[in-house]
């Protein structure tokens, strides 16, 4: 679905969750509550755990209705750049550990701060969002300049050498 359809849809979902539950459509909070539930803690916000599961299932439905379930790594671009399986696995792992840490510290992620927080006109969210977007662009630039990821180009809609 094109961006001019999914963008507004996402915006309406954000508004919708406020109208129904007075809550933001963030994602890192769902992870936090799911982890708490897994560790059997007392004060779990249970509906966020259902929400966590919902994201997984909703994605599955869209995949099945669309391109179809396809078992792959999801990181073909990195393999095309010549990185080995262990390297890719380690990069993804360390990168997501860093993301989780940063999201918790910042109090939100791309959906939480990036969309919900900015839509609520929160200065903290504007700052967090601007920071992670600029940082990500700079890091990507470094990655493409310094590593073989820079050798990749778009061919038939896929990043490849």
């Amino acid at each position, binding site marked *: 679905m094109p961006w001019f359809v*999914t963008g507004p849809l996402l915006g309406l979902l954000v508004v919708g969750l406020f109208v129904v539950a007075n809550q933001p459509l963030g994602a890192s909070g769902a992870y936090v509550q799911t982890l708490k539930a897994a560790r059997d803690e007392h004060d779990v916000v249970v509906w966020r755990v259902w929400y966590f599961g919902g994201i997984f299932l909703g994605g599955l439905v869209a995949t099945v209705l669309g391109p179809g379930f396809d078992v792959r790594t999801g990181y073909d671009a990195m393999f095309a750049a010549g990185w080995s399986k262990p390297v890719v696995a380690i990069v993804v792992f360390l990168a*997501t*550990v860093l993301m989780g840490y940063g999201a918790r510290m910042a109090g939100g992620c791309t959906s*939480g701060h990036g969309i919900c927080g900015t*839509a*609520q*006109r929160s200065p903290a969210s504007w700052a967090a969002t601007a920071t*992670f977007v600029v940082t990500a662009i700079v890091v990507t630039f470094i990655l493409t300049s310094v590593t073989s990821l820079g050798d990749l180009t778009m061919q038939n809609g896929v990043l490849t050498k």
Partner: protein
Amino acid sequence: MNLIGGLFGAAFGFVLAASQLHEYDTIHKTLRFEELDVFLLMGLAIGVSLPLLWILDRKQIRTVYGGRIQLSRSKVERHHIVGGALFGVGWALAGTCPAPALAMLSSGALYGAIAVVGLFIGLHTHDLHMAGGLRQEGDGEHREVATAEP
């Protein structure tokens, strides 16, 4: 409320997968400025939700299960910036983030599992570091609002 959570999560996951936001390539090529669709998508999402939330907030509408609508706005603090920077580094490297990682996994991209596990570990590690002074989640995330059970 659980069902509502599940439904909104499903709708969110559906839109993410339908817009290819769960793919590494989508994020990577956007950050390389080879395609601007994701920026446009996010811009439109904000463009739609910001004015609507502003109006609903002004009218102080009653939400269905959460009492009067309550938007959250916080002053910028150091942890927003530092956390944002760390997040940005990880985002550029992994080409995914919390919600898309789940959709990535459910689309068959198995390394999404590494991403999900990594995210859990990262989130938890921060909590461990903050033990004793647990930071409240920010504006974009869950906060304590009285929610009536349906």
